[in-house]
């Protein structure tokens, strides 16, 4: 395995949680809902996933617990924004505050506990190809995240249910008048987004580190949100954006290691500054509204 291959693997490793969480949020936003609570849901997913894996000794149970945690928190969010038509921005912030707190409560007993990372799965034949380790020497999450990206692409672009979801996100009043189930579809989308965020959290604590520490999500939920905007709400661009971002993260880590005389804090700040720059660059090139038409607006059908 060459140096470049090793670097590319770390890029994929860094990009995968962003990809999973952001793909979930992309579906939520295409349905017209803005859930700012990704960071909170990821944090709880990481804590629950790690705790469940340690307690049960089963990685699978850990992953399921993380997904369940994401579902529960996003269900709470759905109750607020769909059931009570509350402001989506404020509700998402509340979810983040709650989630970060909850993750601390759940994870408190597991600080310092170590666990074996989920081993990579090699695909005979493919992994041994030149450069094959990058795509085919990875842990199951990586395969899943790629499948998720292409499944989302197919779902939104080709499937009937995806068309319904896009319509609802585009204009919920029209969709309602046509008899499309606005709130049901949004509920499903929010829960899907929650499950993805929970899973992305599990990746952090079960694969990436693999241990639990407070605040380990370190703003990845927010970066995932920015990626959705950066990708103009398109799955393939999101895939590209996530790897680009993963690359930037790895670059920063290598720069830290190389001690170039740049303060480590400046390098640590790099992903956040890069996110801002990326958002600006995307906005300059695009004067049009590519965001879903009903994004962030509460929906109350008249009776």
């Amino acid at each position, binding site marked *: 395995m060459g140096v470049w291959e090793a670097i590319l693997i770390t890029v994929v490793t860094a990009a995968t949680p962003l990809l999973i969480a952001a793909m979930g949020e992309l579906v939520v936003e295409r349905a017209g809902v803005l859930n700012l609570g990704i960071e909170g849901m990821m944090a709880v997913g990481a804590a629950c996933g790690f705790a469940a894996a340690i307690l049960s000794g089963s990685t699978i149970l850990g992953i399921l617990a993380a997904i369940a945690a994401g579902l529960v928190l996003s269900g709470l969010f759905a109750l607020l924004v769909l059931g009570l038509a509350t402001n989506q921005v404020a509700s998402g912030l509340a979810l983040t505050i709650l989630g970060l707190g909850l993750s601390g409560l759940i994870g408190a007993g597991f600080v310092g506990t170590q666990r074996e990372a989920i081993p990579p799965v090699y695909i005979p034949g493919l992994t041994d190809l030149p450069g094959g380790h990058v795509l085919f020497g990875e842990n199951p999450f990586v395969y899943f995240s790629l499948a998720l990206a292409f499944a989302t692409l197919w779902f939104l672009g080709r499937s009937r249910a995806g068309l319904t979801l896009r*319509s609802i996100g*585009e204009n919920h009043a029209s969709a309602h008048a046509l008899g499309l189930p606005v709130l049901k579809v949004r509920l499903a989308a929010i829960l899907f987004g929650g499950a993805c965020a929970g899973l992305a959290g599990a990746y952090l604590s079960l694969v990436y580190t693999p241990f639990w520490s407070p605040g380990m999500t370190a703003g990845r939920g927010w970066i995932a949100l920015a990626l959705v905007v950066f990708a103009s709400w398109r799955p393939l661009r999101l895939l590209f954006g996530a790897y680009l971002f993963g690359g930037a993260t790895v670059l920063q880590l290598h720069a830290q290691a190389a001690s170039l005389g740049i303060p480590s804090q400046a390098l640590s700040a790099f992903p956040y500054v890069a996110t801002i720059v990326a958002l600006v660059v995307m906005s300059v090139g695009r004067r049009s509204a590519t965001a879903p038409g009903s994004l962030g607006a509460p929906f109350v059908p008249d009776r």
Partner: protein
Amino acid sequence: MTALVALRGIVKRFGTLTANDHVDLDVQPGEIHALLGENGAGKSTLVKILFGLLQPNEGTIRWQGREVMLSGPDAAAALGIGMVFQHFSLFDNLTVAENIGVAMPKGDGLADLEARIAAVGKRYGLALDPSRPVWTLSAGERQRIEIVRALLREPKLLILDEPTSVLTPQEAETLFSTLDTLAAGGCGLLYITHRLEEVRRLCHRATILRAGKVVAACDPRQESVAALASLMVGSEVAEVRPAAAHALGPVRFSLNGLTLPSSDLHGVALKAVSLEVRGGEIVGIAGVAGNGQAELFGAMSGEDLAASAEAVTIDGKPVGRDGIDARRKRAAAFVPEERNGHAAAPRMTLSENVVLSRHGDGMARGGLVDLRAAKDMAQAIIKAFDVRKGKVDPPAGTLSGGNLQKFVVGREMLRKPGVLIVNQPTWGVDPGATATIRQALIDLAASGAAVVVISQDLDEIYAIADRIAVIHDGELSKAYPAREIGREQIGLLMAGAGHAHAA
């Protein structure tokens, strides 16, 4: 013969308001049935009940003799009820085919959809390009999507809500022949409108609603327009008094080759618009919705600035680069189309809404809001324009459409403006308020002001305008004296034929 659909004793209440009060209605197969009534008479509510969007508090619905529950549009569509909405239920960023596909029943494959769209289009003369995004289409084309969408489901009953409000007279004729073809094929049609000429031209029977109740059912072909109108309004229609003869003053407002790209991606750009309005006259600007009316209003009010100061003048002074406040200081006043959310902030009180457009003349001093002055002014407007409301100073959004419109028109009128620009002054307003507002416009012009009325209602334009110009795709025709230009010619201009440059 069993009626296609029979409504009996339908009651629908919203809080204390009874929108439908024991309404009976039958539609037969092959019949074009008009549902007539003024805005607020309960037509839309009834139609929403029939399409399953609302559930009645009382009453029964029979479909081909069998009692049915319409729990939602799905249930209605499954029975064979189709609907063409007034405010289109379309998705701007999706293609025509996607817009149609999303409304097809579950399990209906989308594979051959484009072929089926083409087939229906050919049969009824409704041509559409399935791959175009909807936002690139005109209002007439958008309506075609709605109709094709309904027809693809082979409805037995088709409901059309004010279908001609966005069409040129010629486009309306095309629609009528499509509807005749449909009826001849046995489809029942429920046609909602308040345009009486159309009803007499098209419909076999009419049911007339007033204040939520059925007041008459008749054969419209046997009735005069005046008789239908008085049934609809419940009294003699209030006429506006034409102004006494008065001399025209100098040009008080002008647009000079105004060109403005739209700030909105899906908007219309204004192209070399020129217009002169003299003191004492009303110029009406006709046109089909979405041809640049909102953009023209924005450019005239100063909400959008022109590229050069000379593009807009008020009393000879170039104001193209001045904002709305500066133009107000030159005694200009503006009434936009949307009452709630543009002319007024719905959750703020009436007195706060006085401050909204009048902080430049007395309602604020030295950066501080003068709430007492605003309250007094609100009461003066309420008195002068007979605005009806519950509390002393309620939130604007709690007023009825007609009363809020009287308030926002009155707010500007009491300034005694030298120039008044108004967009859709009586849209969705009851007949009483309509007469009050039109009279006020006529009286204001008679007192020497220059008045511009943008309206999609040709009847309104003919009722009050001295000269008429037509806007189409951001271009404005020359302004013709109202007596010298007929509906036929206006219709052609509205469709973009023989436009400005040719004229």
